[in-house]
Structures are given as structure tokens and as C-alpha cells.
């Protein structure tokens, strides 16, 4: 596996650490950090600042009963929340979105498939499967698109992206990613708005495919 060369930009990492990043992007950042020790360290630095702020925050006394309540609850049995570990190429945050199941692929044509993980007002996040040598349909974005490679690699006008690399596409980026030879390319892609496909899927069909 080649080294990760495309990382999470600093302002996005700061927003993730502070918890202000919208959910779809947060999933890509969490998945990238799962694969990238450099960005894990960067997150640690932001948490350290958060910790220092926490220690410097003016105290507000808690009600007297709070401590005794908490102490009394220490041994109480708890139903642990399910923890989703990484499986194969899918990091834990993706497995959590999949609720531990395999992706349910829907064909988009030409061998390209997608599996939508979540779609809300704040955007959508999906897995994309692109056979080697195949182009992702030419598209531009209304907003910001983050694409994290989980398997294989792709190349476009801006460079080559291998496992763990994140491509940040803004409104101005009109690109045609092509999956490189070898394994099919599987990506985690997050947007805050529907993708605008310029070809391949007629615009009228976009609501149908939920792209």
C-alpha cells in the first residue's frame, strides 16, 4: 500500500475536533483518521487545545446530589452501545453507518455502483464502486465534496488518489476521476448537496438515482 499523500485540511480538522463539521463530512474525516496516523496526531493536538480550554473554563458548581448519584451508578449494569470495528476495507465509522452489514449496492450503469449510507438535510454520504479503467460520471458539485479512497485508486485532473487519500472538491472543480488499473476503486463520498452529473445520468433521472 502506498503512503497517504492527500490529507484532511487544517480548518476541516479543527471543525471536526470542535464538533461543528456536518455529519457527512465528519464521517469521511473519521474514516480517514482511522487510516492515517498523521491526521490522528493532528486531531490529538486539537483535542489537547480543547482539554486546555476545558481546564481553563470558569467552574460552575454542580448540585450536591450529582456526585452521589454518579458514584451510586458506577457499578450499575449498562447495556453497551454496539461498537463497530473495521471490517476488510471499511473503517469503523463506515461499518457503523452500515450497521455492521455489507453495503447494498445499486447499479448506476457501466459497472458503477453506489450504496447510500445516509442522506439528510445536511448532505449525503455514500460508497461508490468504480470498476478499473472506468470513469466516474463527469460531474460538478453544488457544494463541497469529500472523496476518500478505500480500495484501489483513481486519477483525475488534479492527481492520483490511493487508499486513504482524500480529494476535496469544491464548486469550481469539474473533474473526471478514472479508476486506475487493478482492483475496482471503492470510495466513500460525502456532499452537502446533490452531485450534478453532466453526462451519463440524464439530469431528469437524478432524483430517481438520488445522486
Amino acid at each position: 500500500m502506498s503512503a497517504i499523500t492527500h490529507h484532511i485540511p487544517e480548518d476541516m480538522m479543527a471543525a471536526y475536533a470542535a464538533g461543528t463539521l456536518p455529519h457527512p463530512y465528519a464521517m469521511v474525516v473519521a474514516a480517514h483518521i482511522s487510516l492515517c496516523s498523521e491526521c490522528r496526531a493532528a486531531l490529538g493536538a486539537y483535542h489537547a487545545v480543547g482539554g486546555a480550554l476545558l481546564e481553563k473554563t470558569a467552574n460552575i458548581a454542580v448540585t450536591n446530589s450529582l456526585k452521589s448519584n454518579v458514584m451510586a451508578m458506577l457499578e450499575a449494569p449498562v447495556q453497551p452501545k454496539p461498537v463497530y470495528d473495521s471490517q476488510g476495507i471499511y473503517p469503523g465509522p463506515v461499518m457503523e453507518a452500515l450497521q455492521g452489514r455489507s453495503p447494498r449496492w445499486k447499479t448506476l450503469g457501466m459497472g458503477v455502483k453506489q450504496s447510500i449510507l445516509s442522506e439528510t438535510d445536511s448532505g449525503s454520504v455514500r460508497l461508490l464502486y468504480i470498476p478499473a479503467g472506468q470513469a466516474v460520471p463527469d460531474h460538478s458539485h453544488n457544494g463541497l465534496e469529500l472523496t476518500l479512497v478505500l480500495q484501489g485508486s483513481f486519477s483525475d485532473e488534479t492527481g492520483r488518489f490511493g487508499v486513504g487519500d482524500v480529494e476535496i472538491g469544491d464548486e469550481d472543480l469539474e473533474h473526471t476521476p478514472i479508476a486506475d488499473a487493478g482492483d475496482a476503486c471503492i470510495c466513500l463520498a460525502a456532499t452537502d448537496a446533490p452531485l450534478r452529473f453532466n453526462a451519463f445520468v440524464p439530469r431528469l433521472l437524478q432524483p430517481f438515482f438520488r445522486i
Partner: protein
Amino acid sequence: MMETVLEHPLAGPAQTGPPQTGRAVPVQAPQMSQATVWLVAVRDQRDKDAFGDLFDYFAPRLKGFIMRSGTGAAQAEEIVQDVMLTVWRKAAMFDPHRAQASAWIYQIARNRQIDIIRKESRPIPDELAQGPEAEPDASQILAFDQEAEQLKTALDLLQPDQKEMIEKAYLGDLTHQEISVQTGLPLGTVKSRIRLGLNRLRRELKGLR
């Protein structure tokens, strides 16, 4: 570092037997932060007294911290309770080689607060598997603790407006956009203030390293 010790003539005899820790360790070793000591005692001994100390120190700070971002007192206490219970239950995950106690607790508090505000589970990176080294590396733990101290000092040295911006970015459920609306400052100014504040912090830290 170890090699330097072994090359020292006085260290010679120690090579033949088990390491004589009493001789090699300097008497005036720097202290681990109190919070780290408590948290490690909670982790390793399930020490309820240490947990009580941790509660006394962090609970009022957590409450202040959570209320600064606009959460009411009653809900803030609920979150404090959840956070402290999580600290107790997840203490096994605390690794002082990788995070300061305050940073670790900050992260738990922020996750909990966001899950409640957004009513959805925040994506969290995979936990790293515990490394093969079971032996704690005191110097690394101390380095983290000292960094935390330096960060606190650096925060105190910031200009009030820079400090306020960093606090808002960390404490509030605010994006840069929302900060600019709340403060009436244009977005570019907000971003440069935050960047200036962070750069200043970084410079302070470099100077102290």
C-alpha cells in the same frame, strides 16, 4: 538515552544483574499531572476515591464548559453525569502516551454534547489497538502532561479577542459562519483571528519545547 546511561562508568555493574532502578532514576523526577495520576488509578485499580477526585476537579469545569455553549443548567448536569460515567466505564481506553487526561475528557464531553444537540451519533475514528509495549514510558507521558501545562499558559497569554474566538470555536456549537454572524465580524476576519490565535499558541509551545 539508555545508551548514555549504560556508557556511564557507574552504570557498569548494573549490566550484569537486573536493573537497579533505585540508582538510575533521578530523585527529583518531574511529576505527572494530578489528573493523569487519578485517571490511571481509575483505569488500573478501579479506584473510586481517585474517581471522586477526578469528579470534583472536572465536573464543575465540564458544567461551565457545556453551559458556555448555550446548554441549560439541568441538561448540562445530565451531560456531566454521562461524561463522568463514560470516564469510569471507558477508562481502559485511556492511554496517557497518546492523550492528556483533559484532552481525553474534552473529547468525551464534546461527543456526548453533539450527539444530544444533533440527535445523531457522531462518527468517531477506530480506536487504535493497544500497542505491544505494556511498559509505560514515563517520559512520553510527562511530555504530554507538560504540553498540556504549556497550552494552558499559552492560552492565558493570548489577546482577549483571540482567546474569545478560540473559545467560541471550541465551546460553541458554532461554525465559522455562525461565529461571524454572532460577533458581527466578517468571515475572513473571524478565520484570521482563529488562525492568529492558533499560530500564537503554536509559537508559544515551540518556545517552550
